[in-house]
């Protein structure tokens, strides 16, 4: 059984290595999560709020634009207008346990060809904590 396991483990390695170099949707090796302190040190960052509209309207990071997946097509043009390739983009959602910011960041990279997109660690909750 051990020999079979080793053979299967090695067999899976070949396509995985190919995917690492040639897959069009391969993940970047660079980490994309940043803390509030790092994000704040970027004076010209474009902040994007990936939460639902009501949460955004209740409160948001000053200057942030709303961009969530529910209203993607309606909201994206304003983001494209505000973006330029030299600006770092910081996406946040509600807390450490939410997923929306990662999904929005991924779509920005894949669909809008944005580079320098980062996800705020801890999201809005972390921002609020440091600004209380």
């Amino acid at each position, binding site marked *: *059984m051990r*020999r*079979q*396991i080793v*053979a*299967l*483990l090695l*067999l*899976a*390695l070949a*396509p*995985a290595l190919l*995917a*690492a170099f040639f*897959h069009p*949707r*391969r*993940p*970047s*090796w*660079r*980490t*994309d*999560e940043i803390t509030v302190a790092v994000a704040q040190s970027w004076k010209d960052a474009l902040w994007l709020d990936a939460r639902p509209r009501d949460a955004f309207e209740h409160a948001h990071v000053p200057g942030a634009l709303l961009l969530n997946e529910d209203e993607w097509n309606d909201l994206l043009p304003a983001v494209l207008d505000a973006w330029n390739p030299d600006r770092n983009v910081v996406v946040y959602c509600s807390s*450490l*346990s*939410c*997923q929306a910011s*990662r*999904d929005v960041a*991924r779509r920005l*990279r*894949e669909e809008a060809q944005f580079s320098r997109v980062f996800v705020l660690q801890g999201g809005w909750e972390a921002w609020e904590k440091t600004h209380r």
Partner: protein
Amino acid sequence: MKCFARILGIAVGAVFLIAGAMKAWNPAQFASDVQNYRLLTWTSVVMVALYLPWLEIVSGAALVFGIARRGSIAICTGLMLVFIGALISAKLRGLDIDCGCFGHTGPHGITWPLLRDALLLAALLFLLFRETRAPR
């Protein structure tokens, strides 16, 4: 019983094959799903996102076609234990995430995937028990 075990092997292998293919289709998406569990560093996440789908595909295909049967059942059982461990850990920490088990298809949340994986683990343990008891 032999026929039942063969069909069960094909069914479980097919699940792994399909799940692996859906993840391998978009490893960037899968990396994002793995990252949401907050268990690994980003570099480890990328390695998992690139390798794990292919391990699922290779082991699943081996199980479906009855090649290296013992090895493939052992690997699938190990993978299933890891998946269940990750899901339980996410549930205990109250993470509101997608399972990421079949790409982004299926319902949001981790309760249903946990039940499904428990069933698959039971099937794999049955197959492993049969295989290890059967004469070589």
